[in-house]
């Protein structure tokens, strides 16, 4: 098997002909809830919850079909309709179900469905619950379009749909100015990424005349190298926007303004994974351009460290988790940047992360639920007894993310560190450091939230959340625990064809003991120990201490907003003011003059209109003479 060989899709037959239902079900429910309005207030959230599970069941059927199929026939393409037919271009819209997309569909619908169940409890008292569930379904539908698309153009619809849905959900509590601003910020920053994707699509249309994955993969070898690099960078920009990678990471931390299930949905199962998906999907293009690949890996590494740094400094439980998302996505992007060796690991980590991050976010939501919506970890502490289910499930997520042996993160993260080491030792060392820092700040979070002394505010009586929130937590925790073992021996081979990689030689649920693996464990242990030393041993002050310079930088999100403001906003505002002034003075001036001047002129010409027939007749005669003369003249010339 050569490096670049990918699957040729077979036409959709049988059950696959109805694959559009995967998307149509949540989309239809979203439309129903939004259009039917108040009528569906009573039961809307139930049918909305059924939608992702219906899609999930369908996805399981397809998954089983693909499992049973011959490995060379594991990609199914369903052409839906001719979208644009103009001149030499015929662009069709269709769906592609292959080993890569089906994993995403399963993750999105399953974790998404659990988040729906959780939301029933979490949003029980919100007056706009119906609207919330409609947006959730819209989000799921858009994300499914994104991963099921068979071309970059169709993917772009889902891409934009996810952007829209995230905007609606982040600013769901629109009456809060901070939520409205956060929604806008997410939208604007995402637009910059969208620009990258659009430019990539335009380039593909120019080079290949189509954006179909199949055709682009086939043509990638034939285009000039600099074009492959350029498209690679465009796609990287797009991935940075959606996956909150440096330098487009600033929206993610603010996005915590949305309801917590939204954070879980965005962070765990859907939006932020889109960038990873895009890079992995574009493997054939990246194979042509080492430059862009290194850039991807670098962006991933920088982000994983930046996210970890932010995670260490924050006192807000959701912001710590947001920093950790940045960091973990950074790992995935790093893996994707390594090339064929890393793609499967990126997706592996994405899946395990989907579970353990959803567990922790929903756990954080559960904590907030019990703590009167407070998010300050300095006012938590000792919640272990008050919230046993939340604590246990959260602890599973914690062990998974730090990479405790046999928990899911252990398998997936180890692979990435090893692959990075093998590819670029510098990146490997940095990823290793990141793992240690992750262990440190997650330990900090555990100690500040669940262990130690209670530092609750007056009048707060922590209590366990209702069952609708507890059950999804338990399911997700189970997934976080066994996900790594279950997938470790299998996913590399499963994805090999779809991402153009070789199938790994041996892999099983048993850890693959290497020197690097042991070093990683030691680094993680050191991080945990440091976390215990600083936060488990001593009393935690309820107000944040001044902290070192590093803490301060971390608390300010590495001054990302300040940088953005200085580089983009201020010059932008100045430019806008300049243009506005130019518009007022020069353009309006010209326009006003174009009205005033004819007005003045008209006043003069009007005088000829004196009402006397003799004047009119004279004008006519003069005109006739002029016409005659000029005709004669034009004959002479």
């Amino acid at each position, binding site marked *: 098997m050569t490096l670049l060989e990918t699957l040729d899709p077979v036409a959709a037959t049988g059950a696959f002909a109805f694959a559009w239902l995967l998307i149509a079900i949540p989309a239809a429910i979203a439309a129903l809830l939004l259009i039917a309005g108040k009528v569906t207030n009573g039961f809307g959230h139930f049918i909305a919850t059924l939608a992702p599970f219906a899609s999930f069941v369908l996805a399981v059927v397809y998954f089983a079909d693909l499992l049973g199929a011959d490995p060379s026939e594991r990609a199914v393409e369903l052409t839906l309709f001719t979208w644009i037919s103009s001149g030499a271009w015929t662009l069709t819209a269709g769906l592609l179900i292959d080993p890569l997309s089906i994993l995403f569909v399963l993750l999105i619908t399953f974790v998404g469905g659990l988040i729906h169940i959780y939301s029933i409890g979490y949003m029980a008292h919100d007056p706009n619950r119906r609207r919330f569930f409609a947006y959730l379904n819209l989000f799921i539908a858009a994300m499914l379009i994104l991963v099921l698309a068979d071309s970059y153009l169709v993917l772009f619809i889902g891409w934009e749909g996810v952007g829209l849905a995230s905007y609606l959900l982040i600013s769901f509590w629109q009456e809060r100015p901070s939520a409205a601003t956060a929604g806008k910020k997410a939208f604007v920053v995402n637009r910059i990424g969208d620009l990258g994707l659009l430019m990539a699509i335009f380039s593909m249309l120019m080079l290949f005349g189509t954006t179909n994955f199949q055709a682009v993969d086939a043509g990638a070898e034939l285009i000039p190298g600099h074009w492959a690099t350029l498209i690679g960078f465009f796609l990287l920009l797009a991935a940075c926007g959606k996956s909150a990678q440096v330098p487009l990471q600033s929206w993610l931390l603010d996005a915590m303004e949305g309801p917590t299930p939204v954070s879980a949905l965005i962070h765990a199962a859907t939006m932020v994974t889109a960038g990873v998906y895009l890079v992995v999907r574009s493997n054939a293009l990246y194979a042509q351009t080492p430059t862009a690949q290194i850039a991807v890996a670098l962006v991933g590494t920088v982000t994983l460290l930046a996210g970890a740094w932010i995670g260490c400094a924050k006192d807000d439980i959701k912001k710590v988790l947001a920093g950790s998302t940045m960091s973990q996505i950074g790992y995935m992007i790093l893996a994707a940047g390594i090339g064929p060796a890393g793609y499967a690991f990126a997706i592996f980590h994405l899946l395990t992360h989907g579970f353990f991050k959803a567990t922790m976010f929903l756990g954080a939501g559960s904590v907030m639920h019990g703590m009167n919506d407070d998010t300050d970890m300095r006012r938590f502490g000792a919640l272990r007894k008050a919230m046993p289910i939340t604590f246990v499930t959260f602890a599973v997520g914690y062990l998974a993310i730090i990479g405790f042996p046999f928990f899911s993160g252990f398998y997936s993260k180890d692979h990435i560190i090893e692959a990075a080491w093998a590819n670029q030792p510098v990146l490997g060392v940095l990823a290793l450091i990141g793992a240690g820092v992750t262990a440190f700040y997650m330990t900090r979070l555990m100690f500040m939230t669940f262990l130690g002394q209670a530092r609750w505010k007056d009048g707060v009586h922590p209590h366990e959340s209702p069952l609708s929130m507890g059950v999804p937590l338990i399911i997700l925790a189970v997934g976080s625990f066994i996900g790594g073992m279950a997938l470790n021996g299998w996913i590399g081979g499963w994805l090999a064809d779809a991402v153009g990689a070789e199938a790994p030689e041996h892999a099983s649920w048993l850890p693959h003991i290497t020197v690097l693996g042991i070093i990683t464990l030691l680094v993680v242990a050191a991080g945990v120990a440091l976390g215990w030393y600083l936060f488990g041993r001593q009393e935690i002050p309820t107000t944040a201490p001044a902290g070192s310079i590093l803490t301060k930088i971390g608390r300010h999100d590495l001054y990302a907003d300040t940088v953005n403001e200085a580089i983009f906003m201020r010059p932008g505002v100045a430019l806008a003011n300049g243009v506005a002034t130019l518009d007022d003075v020069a353009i309006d001036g010209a326009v006003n003059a174009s009205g005033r001047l004819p007005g003045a002129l008209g006043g003069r010409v009007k005088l000829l209109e004196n009402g006397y027939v003799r004047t009119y007749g004279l004008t*006519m005669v003069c005109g*006739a003479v002029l016409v005659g003369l000029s005709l004669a003249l*034009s*004959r002479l010339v």
Partner: protein
Amino acid sequence: MTPLAPLAFTAPTINYGLFAPVLFVLGAACVGILVEAFAPRALRFQIQVALSLIALAAAFVNLVLNWGIASRALIDPVTVGQVVTGSLIHDGATQVMWAMLLGFGFVSLLLFAERRVHGGVTAFTPMAAATPGSKAETEAAEAGLEHTEAFPLALFSLSGMLLIVAANDLLTMFVALEILSFPLYVLCGLARHRRLLSQESALKYFLLGSGASAMLLFGVALVFGYSGSFAYDGIVTAVTLSQESDRLLIGGVALIAVGLLFKIGAVPFHAWVPDVYQGAPTPVTSFMAVCTKIAAAGALLRIFYVCFGGARLTWQPVIAAVAILTMIVGTVVAIVQTDIKRLLAYSSVAHAGFLLTAVTGAATTQSGLADGQLGSVGAILFYLIGYGFATIGCFAVVTVVRAHGREATELSQWAGLGRRYPVIGISMVILLLSLAGIPLTAGFVGKFAVFTAAWQGGYWWLALVAVLVSVVAVYIYLRVIIVLFFREPAGEAEVTIAGPMTLIVLAISLIGTLVLGIAPAPVTNVIAQAAEFLHAVAG
């Protein structure tokens, strides 16, 4: 010395089937005169309205049934194409222009038939012969009299218009021009209110129109002197093949151009337009503004493209100059008008300028236009359709905005009207935006088409000038919109409740404006296929 051949008279072969639309209109006009003579006064109005509308509808149906034949005529011009041997020609362009004339004529007659806004009588004077303000006039008004002759007069004029666009020799063209003009002179003087202004306008129009006709007739004589033929075929032969000095031809072209440019309302032959548009009864104004313009433009196009097509390079620069002058003067003077009817009159002058740009371009199959493209003729016809809808609609609005029982035409009286009567206000805005050429209205597509035609014909600089002037022209219409919506209501003028006739006119013009603006393709396709002049094979 050879003896002269004896004069032989051959009776013309008339293809009644193709000619029927004209016969319907002309026949209804004649019957209408008999109705005036014999029908009891109480019934005349109803009979006239029914007669003229049915005649126009019948003519239109007949035309549609003939549509297939027109395309055959293009293939076989000699046997099918000519209606009355030689003097009238029935080609695709004739078909389209007849359809436009009959359609817009029908809509205008609906405005003629509106009685409700005028308090139960038509817009026409009770007794045209009475001295304005005299006792006889007052008595006639109190008796509820009205001149229902307006209907046959309009039909006579319309039949002249149908003839002039089909005319295939200069004499027929001249006679048709007179048939269309004379009834209009009379109609202009029939306004019920402001009788003096109305009579003055009729007299002015008559005097200046006669002058223009005289010039045109002299031009016809000169061209005959040059070519020895009145028939277009003969003139084409002479223009393309003659070795003679073309001094006579140039004089003839100049004078014929003057006569037709007068009817179109091009500068410097436009002086009558504002006075006549203002003085004439508003339904008549809308009839003139749309149908006369279509007829005159059709005649001008046929003569200049068919007869003088070979001398294109001679007349193009002159028409270009006239176009520029017309656009600029029409636009600039319209901006300072304070009377809505005069404003619309100058706007119609400006529009004449815009369509003259396409006349100048002369983008036809003869000058290398590809099949299926709109070209100059098609562009001008589409432009006139869009212009026609918007103009008739605007004048329909003018008839319902009234103060003290008569039309309130002072722009200051319209202040805030749109806020008090949003339906009328918004309708007017849509129509004005179409006249201004804003996208999604027929006016935009039309402007785009004529400017494109000018560009294709090599007159790109003229198209640029036209675009610039049309930017300024937007100001004319925005000014009215501002008065309608952003001025404090003056409270003087009111919108009277219109009868069904006016409402139908308004609805048709709005639908036409929007449909042609949003989905012009079906109409442009028909025009592009059909609107081509039949050229007799020269020599």
